[in-house]
């Protein structure tokens, strides 16, 4: 279990008054304080870590968010912003003395401007909800995390989320135009807008990926794009993880950037096929989903080049999707992959390291060796084109020893990523999960400078304080 800072006793002692204060600011259904009803808020997509909060607040407007933050700031209460609660790094893990501020009720699309290709939505709109709002007109919102069905755009900004198609279109930061944020003391601030690149500092860049530690996002203006003329996915099956890894590197270094280039190993292929019935090659050790898009001629040209490269890696099979339904099933399997692993293991830890693609074969081999050493199975499902690994370490939470081994295994994987020239997190954020590994990536001077940014926005360290930075440092700040 991950260490948490000691709760502030003076806050716990004022619990009833704090709850009463929240009830004055929000409708009756917007404040949760009964112990039984707080339990479901004790965790997010990383269910191995749990801590019920002091209370949950569910505001419905930016003004209510501001009022709640102003009140909690005055009271010195820690604040945990929460979207859909799908974080795989424990980004929304509460603290015993903190109030969870859930943004789920801010779920309206505010404006769509097709002429200037942007949309303004509230933070609690789901990622796919943006695409669904504009796809009738032929547009889409590009970043597509696998949890896009459920995860909310506010959380995407907080974690600078990626997705399968970010190989071509970039991550959240590259598709963002403006934000409405609420500071910890309750001021409402607009940053950027429906235009490219604001004057002055790159505040959007600073706030994107700040993991709810600098401000609470309540509205987001995103770039929407016109959809491609068409897209086709190819499934390439290989005899070994390392071979598929080498093929990925060969494709990327040939200069081709497919719209998506995804990797799945044998356990992942079998779990996902059971869910999606997509026709995945069950005889393969590893499989790549390679998608290209554009006009039919463009697709044909790219697919034939990719096919040539794959054929140099002794593939078991190469299959191009023949219909929109088949492509949908292929992506349904990939996007549901993490959940599908629930079919073969009661629990998993999902790693999120990023490495140079040239090191893929070596890193996959070494993860396989670690799997044997720790006695825990691994399913590899990841954005191969970006070198963004997602080894899922399978364990049994009812067995404390297996969980302890899984945590150590995970830390070793991430240290390996840093060792080969990569980083701890590609798209899930540091959260609480990778917090204690930050000193493997950064020097004490690096971290001290980063913490000064947090100090500037939130001098009392009330916003999501126990995340991102190694706890010793946080505690010093909070004291």
């Amino acid at each position, binding site marked *: 279990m991950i260490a948490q800072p000691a709760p502030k006793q003076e806050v716990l002692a004022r619990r009833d008054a704090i709850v009463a204060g929240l009830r004055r600011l929000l409708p009756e*259904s917007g404040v*949760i304080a*009964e112990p*039984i*009803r707080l*339990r*479901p*808020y004790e*965790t*997010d*997509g990383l*269910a*191995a870590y749990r801590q019920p909060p002091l209370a949950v607040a*569910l505001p*419905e407007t930016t003004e209510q968010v501001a009022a709640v933050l102003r009140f909690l700031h005055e009271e010195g209460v820690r604040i945990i912003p929460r979207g*859909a*609660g*799908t974080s795989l790094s424990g980004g929304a893990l509460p603290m015993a003395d903190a109030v969870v501020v*859930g943004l*789920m*009720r801010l*779920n309206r699309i505010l404006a769509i401007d097709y002429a200037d290709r942007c949309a303004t939505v509230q933070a*609690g709109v*789901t990622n*796919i909800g943006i695409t669904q709002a504009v796809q009738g007109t032929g547009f889409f919102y590009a970043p597509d995390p696998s*949890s896009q*069905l*459920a*995860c909310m755009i506010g959380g995407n900004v907080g974690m600078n989320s990626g997705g399968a198609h970010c190989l071509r279109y970039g991550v959240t930061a590259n598709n963002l135009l403006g934000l409405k944020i609420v500071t910890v003391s309750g001021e409402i601030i607009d940053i950027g807008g429906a235009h490219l690149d604001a004057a002055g500092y790159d505040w959007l860049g600073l706030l994107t990926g700040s993991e709810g530690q600098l401000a609470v996002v309540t509205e987001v203006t995103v770039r929407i794009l016109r959809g491609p003329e068409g897209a086709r996915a190819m499934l390439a099956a290989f005899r070994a993880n390392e071979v598929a890894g080498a093929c990925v590197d060969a494709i990327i270094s040939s200069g081709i950037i497919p719209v998506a280039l995804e990797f799945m190993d044998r356990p992942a292929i079998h779990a996902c096929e*059971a*869910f999606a019935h997509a026709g995945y090659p069950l005889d393969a050790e590893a499989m790549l989903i390679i998608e290209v898009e554009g006009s039919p001629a463009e697709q044909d040209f790219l697919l034939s080049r990719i096919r040539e490269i794959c054929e140099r890696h002794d593939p078991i099979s190469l299959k191009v999707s023949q219909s929109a339904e088949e492509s949908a099933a292929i992506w349904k399997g990939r996007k*549901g*992959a*993490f*959940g*599908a*692993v*629930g*079919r073969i293991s*009661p*629990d*998993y830890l999902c790693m999120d390291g990023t490495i140079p693609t040239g090191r893929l074969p070596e890193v996959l081999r070494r993860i396989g060796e670690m799997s044997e050493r720790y006695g825990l199975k691994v399913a590899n499902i990841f954005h191969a084109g970006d070198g963004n690994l997602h080894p899922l370490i399978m364990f049994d*939470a*009812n067995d404390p020893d297996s969980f302890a081994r899984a945590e150590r295994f995970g830390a070793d994987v991430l240290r390996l990523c840093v060792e080969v020239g990569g980083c701890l997190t590609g798209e899930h954020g540091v959260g609480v999960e990778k917090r204690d590994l930050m000193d493997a990536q950064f020097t004490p001077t690096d971290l001290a400078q980063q913490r000064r940014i947090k100090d500037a926005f939130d001098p009392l360290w009330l916003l999501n304080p126990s995340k991102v930075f190694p706890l010793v440092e946080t505690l010093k700040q909070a004291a």
Partner: protein
Amino acid sequence: MQTSFTAEQLRDPAIAASNQVLRTCVHCGFCTATCPTFVLLGDELDSPRGRIYLIKDMLESGRPATGDVARHVDRCLSCLSCMTTCPSGVHYMHLVDHARTVIEETFRRPWHDRMLRALLAAVLPYPGRMRAALAAARLGRPFAALVPGSTTLGRRLRAMLALAPRGQMPRSTLDGVRTHPAEGTRRARVALLAGCAQRVLDPGINDATIRLLTRLGVEVVVARGAGCCGALTHHMGRHAPAMASARANIDAWTREIEGDGLDAIVVNTSGCGTTLKDYGFMFRTGEAALRERAERVASLVADISEFLVRIGYAPTREPPGLTVAYHAACSLQHGQRVTEAPKLLLRKAGFRVVEPAEGHLCCGSAGTYNLLQPEIATRLRDRKLQNIRTTAPDLIAAGNIGCLTQLAGGGLPTVHTVALLDWMAGGPAPAGLKPAPPATGTR
């Protein structure tokens, strides 16, 4: 997900089954996005993942259910949209059914809630009582506006009166226990679940089913002793009466299976079909012979649309030139995963079929939900009707009486899929639609 049941708790087969369900969940949260109550209410506690957590806590602690747990579990429609979405294959239906039983056994509801539930359980599964109750409600309907108060009780009474039929209540021409012989050569022999509430609310659905099937060469038997499938009481957590209803059906159809034989047990109310298909699970801990009979019955159950696709359907009338908004009942699309058959058949019958946006979201009917949770049910109905109207259809088709009743009164005729199929194959025009186009023989 981690669970903490003791070895002794796990000796209870119901706890053991729920433990398996909980262990399958990895808490990914995908289910929240397609849950109608989460979409409306924006609270984890009103999402499947939140309910799973509340139920886990209740079962692990072994304590009686509290009002908080009951409130959030009661708000679940059991639409099972979460099961379609879940990548891990969590069997939410079995978990929430178990939770409803525990709540019913250990939580004392307010008096008016207990009375209403007792009344619904005593009336809905019995066609005679249901008919009498509807006649009374029809008389009471003009006074609905006079029911006072914004209390739960007042809202529920108004909701009940609003559902009473407006016109004269129709009577069936083919109702009752009997065998309807096939026309021409007999190709199959099936039992029809004649049902309970549906045969009172719209007896034309059974009539159309029997006409269409016998015309296609299917012998249809309405077996003596078969009645309510048990779903209505099952979903209220009333375990014993639900099991008794299921047991009666199993016995009745087993006599037919072992007598003249059955090729299928056809269901035209998809809410019931979901429960019938689950009989094997419901009787999993019973004696071996009963378990086998339950499994055999469950394995024969087919929605009318599944069965028609299997034996082949062809219209005999010219295409009617009508656009049908196909409303996928949750019990059919999520509970039974029957999604394509009804649309395929309607297109084959000559209708233009359109599918409204948010087709995965429940219309709010959900068995007795629209009576017990009128506010959420009404918001879902209005949202559903808005999505349907956007497709500019001539009528709405669905395979479940609950949805048809819920969506009636929205300005569009609501017709059971099988009534449309029967019409285009020579049957009478469903009530509320224009007269049938001329017959031209098999197209």
